[in-house]
């Protein structure tokens, strides 16, 4: 049984403050890289034939295309199963972006809606330049590789790293403590308290039952920790079969 749908809730992975802060940091870093790398690369630069490449429209197009490529790369990393449909939509997004860009920057639309499409010729002229593509490649690398590295560490080694550090801590603690006291089971108390369920069915005991004297929470050590639930670890639950003859013999 694949219960991976339950683990985000149990581990509080989506809406915690830690996730939010991490998300903000990653977004800030990506935004800064996406703007400042093209900015620095285009300062004072020209085409190979001397003509303009550091104009406003080329700069905007270069930044926009880098953003598209970075977002697509992020989606590629997040897609677990690459069926034909996924391939079609992911590669198709990039193709659609390029098609729309070239359409918006084409002669035809400029002639029809002159003031709305002033970027005419920019795609043809700046996407032909190798230094624009090299800038976009660098931006993409700087944005995507940290995610890949972090995910690689997380997926493959997180459990083992946690076990290792826990083991180290346990070892350090053990070496400094005296020998533990011998274990004695707690004395059994015969319980005369009956459950409030029985009382609640008779008249007159409503106040007693709803007072907080019954069913107080005892701090017993839990059998399964929060991180060790079989659901969390995606392992099948082991069920013990209880036969009916054994139950009857106990009561």
């Amino acid at each position, binding site marked *: 049984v694949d219960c991976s749908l339950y683990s985000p809730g149990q581990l509080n992975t989506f809406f915690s403050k830690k996730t939010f802060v991490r998300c903000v940091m990653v977004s800030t870093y990506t935004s800064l890289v996406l703007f400042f790398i093209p*900015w*620095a*690369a*285009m*300062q*004072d*630069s*020209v*085409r*190979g*034939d*001397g*003509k*303009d*490449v*550091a*104009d*406003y*429209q080329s*700069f*905007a197009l270069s930044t926009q295309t880098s953003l598209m490529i970075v977002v697509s790369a992020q989606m590629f990393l997040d897609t*677990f*199963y*690459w*069926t*034909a*449909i*996924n391939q079609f939509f992911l590669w198709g997004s990039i193709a659609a972006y390029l098609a729309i860009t070239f359409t918006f920057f084409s*002669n035809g639309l*400029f*002639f029809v809606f*002159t*003031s709305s499409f*002033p970027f*005419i*010729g920019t795609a*043809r*002229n700046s996407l032909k*330049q*190798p*230094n624009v593509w*090299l*800038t976009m490649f*660098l931006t993409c*690398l700087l944005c995507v*590789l*940290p995610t*890949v*590295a972090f*995910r*690689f*560490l997380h*997926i*493959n*080694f997180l459990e*083992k*790293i946690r*076990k*290792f550090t826990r*083991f180290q801590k346990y070892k350090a603690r053990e070496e400094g403590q005296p020998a533990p006291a011998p274990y004695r089971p707690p004395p059994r108390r015969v319980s005369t308290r009956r459950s409030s369920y029985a009382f609640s069915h008779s008249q007159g005991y409503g106040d007693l039952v709803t007072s907080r004297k019954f069913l107080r929470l005892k701090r017993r050590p839990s059998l399964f920790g929060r991180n060790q639930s079989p659901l969390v670890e995606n392992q099948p639950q082991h069920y013990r079969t209880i036969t009916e003859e054994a139950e009857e013999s106990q009561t």
Partner: protein
Amino acid sequence: MGKTKDKSGPLARRPDNSAFKQQRLPAWSPMLTANTVLPFFYLLAVICMLLGVWLLLLVQSTQEIKLDYTDLGNCNECFDLRRNVSNAVQTCSCRVEFSIDKSLKGDVFFYYGLKNFHQNLRRYMDSRDDGQTLGRIKKLKNPSSYCAPFDKDNDGVPIAPCGAIANSMFNDSFTLNYHLSSSRIVPVPLLRTGLTWYTDKNVKFRNPRADNLTLAEVFEGTRPPLYWQKPVYSLDPHDPNNNGFINEDLIVWMREAAFPNFKKLYGILNRADPIFEKGLPKGNYTIDISYNFPVQHFQGRKGVVLTTLTWFGGQNHFLPIAYLVTSSLILLTAVVLTVAWWKFGKDGKNMKE
């Protein structure tokens, strides 16, 4: 005989037994294992380093000479003259000298540069009428309201070309001279066409249809922008392909720069002359400048740049150095990941349990 499906019965609405509908499509599942990720990182580090080194060598092979002439030498007098707007009608010229130690081999490009001039200001960039510069007669006589207050003058005469961008066109002109010997000074021929993108010159900017009229007659009923000294139809009277809206200096200026410090192409060395066949020889040079553009009002500077180019562009060291830095960062990450894999991977052989 067509197939008829049995549309009744309890299993009538069962989906087809196709791979698509039964969610059995063949899929590829990428796994971030050590076998794929580590070599990938090392390969990328090598690629980035090679790219960085190659681009650095390319950029180092270009030569660039920059000269800020805002108040250099006797341009200082023109600088003081231009401080006052009422002197705008007076011409002023000055001369700057410089020398080239190593000859500039190959094609040499002459740029004028401005500092602190924000052509990327939003309101400034909107202040143009692309329909008018496309040559539409209706727009010629009736410019768009985006050009205001540079669309009509006080008498209501429309301005062509309208807008703040055209109005602030750079109007200094340069003559480069080479001192061949102590007595002989030779002007350096510069090509003043071929400076613009093909789409700008042939699609975005067109003169209004002339039929049998001269260009001056076509522009009748309009007036040049307030800061211009010549009307648009006499920007280059000798070359009809460079006159009017398709004048290359105008087109180059109208392509707004992205940053406040920019340079725009003014001319390309004409290597037909035997003295300049291989480029610009070393020696002493002077530039005679007709100083018109005032830069005090925005605390700017102006200058000229002479540079050789490669297919990669001019002298911009950022990209090669960034590639080298990135390659070392990727290598560092790869090493860290390898250490992590060595310690914690390999089925935890190195962990004592």
